[in-house]
């Protein structure tokens, strides 16, 4: 027995461990929800409303049922439970009853023996619609006399209004800038469409294999609609082809279960790309009016803002989006006087809900645009202005909440500012120029611009929500070696959560062989893979469960060995550091299994009149510097480089952190310069990847990334949520850089060529701001 036999296992917290599913993914063997198959299965399909607003006079499925190969055609009348679902408000019918409120709303579902047959059956369903005028303008929807879309909503079409009042809401300032900004409707555009397989069970229940973000919230909504107890609706996670918020709401879950229970056959549903655009919620379009007041030295005195978020036809997560936009809506700055009003509104536009950075994304575009405008008015360097007002640990949010862990806003800004600037583009290589491979520009009229953005996001669920995760950790000896299995319902969407769970178990128990079991509802809820929360909350649960297992093991060992021991690097070790026994020796055939429900610090509701309250449990920050080349004659933009600095508290997996920063930044880039769902009179006009453009590998600039690790003492390992902050600040940084290159106001995203080169003559570019920092 000696300490020399101990060795630290690889793939612990802090290592860039390889994903356990990596080999399957590169071989094409990872089973996504659209890859599932069962003998004897049927294919489901959904009939959707072509109208954004209509009364349904009648639905007749008779002709569909007479088509050979069709096994069921169901309407709202066939929903056995309550025909309602929703994350926050159950305001959305599983299948429309007397009215449809958005284009694409599900009206009927069919099951057939071939997907083509199912589609043809849909054509045979007769729906008699009385078309109504759609309510498509969120501001008008708030006005007196607008048609009320949800009579049960007490605020008329206003689903939620958050008011924040801090300091003197009427404070005056020496320098005032105002602005009105708009953010278009962005789509998550994950590549793996909504899909799943429902299998009827012997007990009258159903087993659903599905790609989602939160198994238990799906379970509860599905069971409610099916009129079944939750234990009869068992969900297992299928491979998820990206999520980004779009899988937080139900899509095909109830429909497939209804069809499976009715036909007593497994039913698979897979949305096509166009259907996917109708099958999930989008990022809220926003109208944002701001007034910033500062003293002549650039110290912010007041911010007054009004934000209107178009929630579309159903609530989804609009209430949380409103709260985020309001509470984070002045940005990571210290402002003594705040008056903020933020509304989430029902319209007949597509429902909007969760997308990476929700609420914070829209507000950040506006407040960062304002900060640039203020800097220009004051003749100050925009980074210096931001640093002067930057929030830090101990600062007070407009909600009165004191930020009680690291808030290195100034440091993040300094870091991106101080990176060397990329060299000028090579005018002989069109690939380096705006327009890229199309040879669009030869360097004429190409102007470089540099812009900055910094953002703030809350991590995990807020406002008093009982936010927790459950982990079950099992330790046993197999083939003479200790083996750990971790079972949670936490959803891997590509962010690397299975890797993180494995790393945590290895770290806590010192055991190399760790298996993360498939996520399902056989264990307690893990909460959603959203709000940058899973490493924190499920990570916390796995850590806590491992600690219980360790304590139990050590107690067992103490009994067997007759002395106190601890677990170090997978060996039972005495106080003097000597290895007393191996786990296999102590455990033998016994199994230790512990299940823990773990919560982060509680949060509290906002005061309805003043918006005061400790609503959030953790804040996260990122800053970007964008360097762009703009062809001012043609309106083309090339993002030359993005620099990003982000504090992650502790990088559990540095490689995965980098991936999140790249991915988030790219989605922010998409919002800045190309992505928008075009909605005309409530109707989506570009539900395809030909017309809804997302960044390609050509659009993705090289990134220079600085990761700070300033531990949050309240969080497991000190970690801070990672996924959303980089999405938030890249958009305003890129737009600021385009403004610097073009002199255009650019108050709306996405910015497209017509916004830059619309004028009769090529705009005379203003020189970009001096790139020499002021301090």
């Amino acid at each position, binding site marked *: 027995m000696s300490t020399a036999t101990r060795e630290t296992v690889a793939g612990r917290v802090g290592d860039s461990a390889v994903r356990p599913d990596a080999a399957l993914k590169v071989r094409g063997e990872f089973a996504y929800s659209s890859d599932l198959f069962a003998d004897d299965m049927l294919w489901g399909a959904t009939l959707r409303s072509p109208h954004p607003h209509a009364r349904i006079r009648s639905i007749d499925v008779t002709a569909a049922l007479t088509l050979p190969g069709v096994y069921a055609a169901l309407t709202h009348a066939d929903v056995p439970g309550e025909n309602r679902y929703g994350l926050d408000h159950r305001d959305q019918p599983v299948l429309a009853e007397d009215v449809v409120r958005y284009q694409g709303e599900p009206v009927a579902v069919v099951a057939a023996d071939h997907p083509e047959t199912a589609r043809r059956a849909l054509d045979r369903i007769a729906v008699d619609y009385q078309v109504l005028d759609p309510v498509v303008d969120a501001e008008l929807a708030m006005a007196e006399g607008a048609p009320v879309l949800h009579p049960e909503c007490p605020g008329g079409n206003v689903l939620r209004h958050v008011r924040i009042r801090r300091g003197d809401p009427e404070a005056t300032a020496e320098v005032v800038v105002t602005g009105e900004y708009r953010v278009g409707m962005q789509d998550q555009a994950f590549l793996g469409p909504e899909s799943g397989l429902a299998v009827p069970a012997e007990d009258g229940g159903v087993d659903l294999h599905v790609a989602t973000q939160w198994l238990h919230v799906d379970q509860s909504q599905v069971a409610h609609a099916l009129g079944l107890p939750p234990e009869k609706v068992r969900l297992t996670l299928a491979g998820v082809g990206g999520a980004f918020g779009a899988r937080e709401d139900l899509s095909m879950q109830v429909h497939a279960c209804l069809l499976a229970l009715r036909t007593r056959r497994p039913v698979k549903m897979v949305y096509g790309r166009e259907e996917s655009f109708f099958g999930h919620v989008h990022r809220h379009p926003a109208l944002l009016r701001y007034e910033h007041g500062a003293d002549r030295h650039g110290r912010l005195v007041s911010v007054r803002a009004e934000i209107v978020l178009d929630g579309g036809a159903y609530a989804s997560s609009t209430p949380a989006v409103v709260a985020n936009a309001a509470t984070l809506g002045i940005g990571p700055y210290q402002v003594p006087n705040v008056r903020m009003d933020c509304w989430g509104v029902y319209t007949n536009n597509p429902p909007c809900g969760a997308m990476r950075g929700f609420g914070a994304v829209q507000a950040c575009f506006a407040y960062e645009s304002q900060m640039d405008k203020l800097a220009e008015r004051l003749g100050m360097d925009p980074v210096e202005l931001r640093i002067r007002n930057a929030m830090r640990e101990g600062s007070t949010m407009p909600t009165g909440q004191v930020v009680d862990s690291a808030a290195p806003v100034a440091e993040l800004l300094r870091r991106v500012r101080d990176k060397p600037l990329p060299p000028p583009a090579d005018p002989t290589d069109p690939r380096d120029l705006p327009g890229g491979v*199309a*040879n*669009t520009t030869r360097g004429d009229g190409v102007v470089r611009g540099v812009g900055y953005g910094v953002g703030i996001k809350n991590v995990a669920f807020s406002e008093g929500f009982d936010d927790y995760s459950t982990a079950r950790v099992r330790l046993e000896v197999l083939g003479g070696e200790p083996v750990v299995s971790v079972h949670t319902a936490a959803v891997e969407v590509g962010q690397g959560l299975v890797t993180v769970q494995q790393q945590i178990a290895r770290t806590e128990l010192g055991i190399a062989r760790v298996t993360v079991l498939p996520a399902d509802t056989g264990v307690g809820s893990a909460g959603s893979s959203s709000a940058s929360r899973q490493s924190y909350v499920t990570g916390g649960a796995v850590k806590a469960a491992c600690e219980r297992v360790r304590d139990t093991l050590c107690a067992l060992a103490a009994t067997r060995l007759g002395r106190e021991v601890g677990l170090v690097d997978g060996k039972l070790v005495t106080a003097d550091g000597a290895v007393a026994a191996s786990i296999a020796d102590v455990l033998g055939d016994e199994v230790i299994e512990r299940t823990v429900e773990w919560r982060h610090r509680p949060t509290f509701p906002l005061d309805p009149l003043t918006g005061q309250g400790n609503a959030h449990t953790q804040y996260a920050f990122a800053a970007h510097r964008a360097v762009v080349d703009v062809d001012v004659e043609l309106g083309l933009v090339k993002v030359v480089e993005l620099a990003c600095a982000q504090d992650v508290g502790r990088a559990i997996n540095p490689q995965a952190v980098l991936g999140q920063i790249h991915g988030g930044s790219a989605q922010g880039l998409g919002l800045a310069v190309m992505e928008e769902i*075009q909605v005309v009179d409530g109707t989506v*006009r570009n539900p395809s990847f030909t017309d809804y453009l997302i960044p390609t590998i050509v659009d993705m600039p090289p990134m220079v990334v600085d990761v700070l690790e300033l531990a949050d003492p309240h969080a497991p390992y000190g970690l801070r949520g990672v996924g959303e902050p980089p999405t938030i600040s890249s958009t305003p940084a890129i737009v600021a850089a385009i403004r610097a290159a073009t002199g255009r106001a650019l108050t709306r995203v996405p910015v497209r060529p017509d916004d830059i*080169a619309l004028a009769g003559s090529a705009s005379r570019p203003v020189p970009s701001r001096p790139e020499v920092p002021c301090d």
Partner: protein
Amino acid sequence: MIPFDYQRAEDTRSAVATVTARPGAAFLGAGTNLVDHLKLGVAAPDLLVDVSHLPFDMIEPLAGGGVRIGATVRNSDLAVDPVIRQRYPMVSAALLSGASGQLRNVATTAGNLMQRTRCPYFQDVTTPCNKRRPGSGCSALEGYHRDHAILGASRHCVAVHPSDLAVALTALGAVVQVEGVKGARSIPIIDLYRLPDDAPQHDTVLEHGELITAVDLPALPMATRSTYRKVRDRASYAFALVSVAAAVDVERGTVRDVRVALGGVAHKPWRARRAEEALRGAPATDDAFRAAAEAELAGARPLRDNAFKVPMARNTIVATLRELTRREEP
């Protein structure tokens, strides 16, 4: 998708005869557009005659100095052909600015020319569209039409032709060789495509059953100095907002001859003859280029949301000619 039959063509004559005789039949090339239309319900043929393997896969010299491009030559092969690259670089550039490597690997020359508009209403069978269902109306006229035509449109249709290759071929004055039951005919590409007028259902003048077998490029020495520029919302893998194919011959600072065609602005690739006329004999200066572009675009009738295309087209013409003439002058 409505069921259909499939035949692999034995030879050109029988393929043409089969399709001509059956109103519901259609030729299938690589299918990169037709297969999409089958899925969308935009096309519902009862028979597909596969002509993709017919022996039209050669690029050959023509007597008189031109080049014949076989109808089934794949876009990727055409783009890298040494003769094309050297003598008609605008063709290469146009091809490489379109679609993706995977699509160019299968898309054929004729299929590229025969692709149909990407107007979202044309592709959405639930909406009125005169091109898809004559007489049903044009949804784009008052709807979403940012990508639509500024030249030569009618109230029946404001769609644009999506091909990049066809724009280059139009600038070059290519001639399309066509085989029909009544025999072969040659159609200058400028006459192949139609303006929408009151019959936008017809993209081209081809009769049902006529098959493109080749495209002939004229000997055009100035085309060695030609290029293609494409302005779009994304730097690759996107259709043009505006594109310009141009070739120019400059001597001592004066434009001797010039070819300009525009894409993304009309129902057909738009040969900019007014601009060409204005430029012949003019000094090779930005001012002259701008004046020529403005002469061409004087006839532009933009829609509510696409007025930006007028200055965009003008600036793209100027920038393209500037690039070519700058290259010309040592």
